[in-house]
């Protein structure tokens, strides 16, 4: 230990004796050492604010590549509200992302319809019903579930879900909205469970005890007491799940089919915003308008997820205040 020399031992009389002094006390420091420490503290401060720099950097560089088109020839209304996406057409290039937004929207909404009951239900089970051992085991499983890479999910979508959906629902193609939504549901459930469980854990035990003392069952306690008081945290859990689903790339690229249209049923194939960038960026030559429009989609995605995450953060902050 570095500070052994200045350890203070009480004398037998109960008085405190000064520690024996070495030739150079450890608190008298060389100027070089002090300067090194100053430098290091500045480095720490720099790293501390680096996250802000990176978020701005991401926005700046994505914006920089897309700005030429965004402020140039791109008609924003036509970009957002038409469904015709023909970026490589020879005669008439059209960039309308409405169908892609519909693709992202449909897959996300269906995924949330599946994931929200499961995610929040599991969070309730973890926090209220099961014992400590089961809880630890389940949390490990959920953590492992969250660790599965998205490209593996995509592969599962093609190799497992595709034939399964074809057989169960008797449809010709299994790469569709339903397939992507099932994968996204499985991918976004872990974050919902962990945030949701935190929210339920944050409800003071005195609330539960008061409800039980009034004679309510556990289910009544959950329904009448816990859910209302944890609703902000649960909302944040759902929002983070939505953010995850909207931004997911590889799984939806592989599992939703490649048809750019507005889906009418869960069995229609779609193409999402993320999948479009992943599928077409390789072919678009750097600086071309096709390349730039993909960056504009990137700006759109960045804005959507930023808004969702900000909302989740504000909702969580709301709980902490109250």
């Amino acid at each position, binding site marked *: 230990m570095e500070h052994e020399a200045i350890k203070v031992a009480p004398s037998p009389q109960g008085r405190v004796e000064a520690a024996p002094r070495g030739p150079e006390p450890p608190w008298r420091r060389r100027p070089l050492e002090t300067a090194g420490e100053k430098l290091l503290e500045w480095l720490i401060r720099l790293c501390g604010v680096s*996250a802000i720099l990176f978020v701005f950097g*991401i926005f700046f560089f994505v914006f920089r590549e897309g700005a030429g088109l965004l402020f140039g020839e791109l008609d924003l209304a036509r970009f957002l509200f038409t469904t015709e996406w023909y970026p490589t057409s020879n005669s008439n290039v059209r960039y309308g992302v409405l169908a892609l937004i519909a693709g992202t929207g449909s897959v996300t909404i269906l995924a949330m319809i599946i994931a929200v009951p499961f995610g929040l239900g599991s969070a309730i089970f973890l926090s209220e019903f099961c014992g400590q051992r089961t809880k630890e085991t389940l949390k490990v499983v959920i953590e492992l579930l969250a660790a599965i*890479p998205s490209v593996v999910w995509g592969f599962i979508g093609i190799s497992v879900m595709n034939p399964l959906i074809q057989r169960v629902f008797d449809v010709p193609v299994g790469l569709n909205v339903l397939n992507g939504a099932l994968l996204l549901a499985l991918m976004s459930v872990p974050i919902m469970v962990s945030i949701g469980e935190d929210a339920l854990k944050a409800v003071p035990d005195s609330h539960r005890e008061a409800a039980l003392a009034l004679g309510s069952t556990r289910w009544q306690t959950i329904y009448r007491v816990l859910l209302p008081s944890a609703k902000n945290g649960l909302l944040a859990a759902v929002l983070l799940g939505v953010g995850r689903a909207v931004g997911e790339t590889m799984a939806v690229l592989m599992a939703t089919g490649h048809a750019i249209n507005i889906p009418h049923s869960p069995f229609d194939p779609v193409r999402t915003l993320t999948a479009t960038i992943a599928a077409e960026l390789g072919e678009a030559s750097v600086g071309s308008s096709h390349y730039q429009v993909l960056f504009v989609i990137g700006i759109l995605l960045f804005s959507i997820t930023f808004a969702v995450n900000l909302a989740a953060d504000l909702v969580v902050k709301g709980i902490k205040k109250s």
Partner: protein
Amino acid sequence: MTSTFAETRFGRTRKRNELIAKCVFGLMASLLIAPLLLIVGYLVVEALPLLSWDFLVTNPEGGMRRGGIWSALLGTVYLVTLSLLIAAPVGVLAAVYLNEYAEENWLTRVINLAVVNLAGVPSIVHALFGLGAFVLFAGIGRSILAASLTLAIMTLPVIIASTKEALSSVPRAFREACWNVGATRWQTIRGIVLPNSVSGILTGVILQVSRTAGETAPVMFTGAVFFKRIEAGDPFAYSIWDQCMALSMHLFTITTQVNDAPHALPYATAVVLLGTVLTVNATAIALRVYLRSRKKW
């Protein structure tokens, strides 16, 4: 009176409702376990004919229809190592700042918000950023270095979050004791705080490795290629200025671009990728459980 409250009709209904609720929620939770076990089991069974040591150390051949995954595996190792070397110091120092230096003010709030948002930025947007900033603007070109930088920034929040948790679990009394004997802030951090949280930090670093190994979209346009010929078995076959193959990208390629690959090939690739990621994660979890059991305070 022998009859208890629970035996009245009212009580029976309550009891039944409670049981139903428990069963429904329990079923939801167990339905989360099922896919993990089923998927891993199914993939392993389908992959069995190809899984062997040879599969790992031979290169893909014949338009990726034969052979193993050596070049992809090595590429992933390079990407993971380099991005770890970049992300770990920055992430740990950022967490040290947030936990030891930052005051409760607007700047700290903005930093925390930025960390949350950095974690929430879609991976494909990270890819666009990597392409715009490192490949084109910085002029690094598509290379292992550019891809690793992109991955490092993407996984920074993982390291920051777990390091912060590890640092904040060191009791404040430890720091106060150290300050009281005259140590400076940095001496306290180096002498007391970091040694007491090093295993927690390690857990975060391990999680970052697992996350990096599985990412596909960010490397697709910044450094990974469909195919690259290198010498099988040579661990120094890539330089950081080279493009490389990556395991995740390789799985994507043989699943979607190669039509007549043997049935077991994509399965075996998926199992190697999944196995690596899950093993690394399980290590982190085991480390955490072990730490919690021997915590002295």
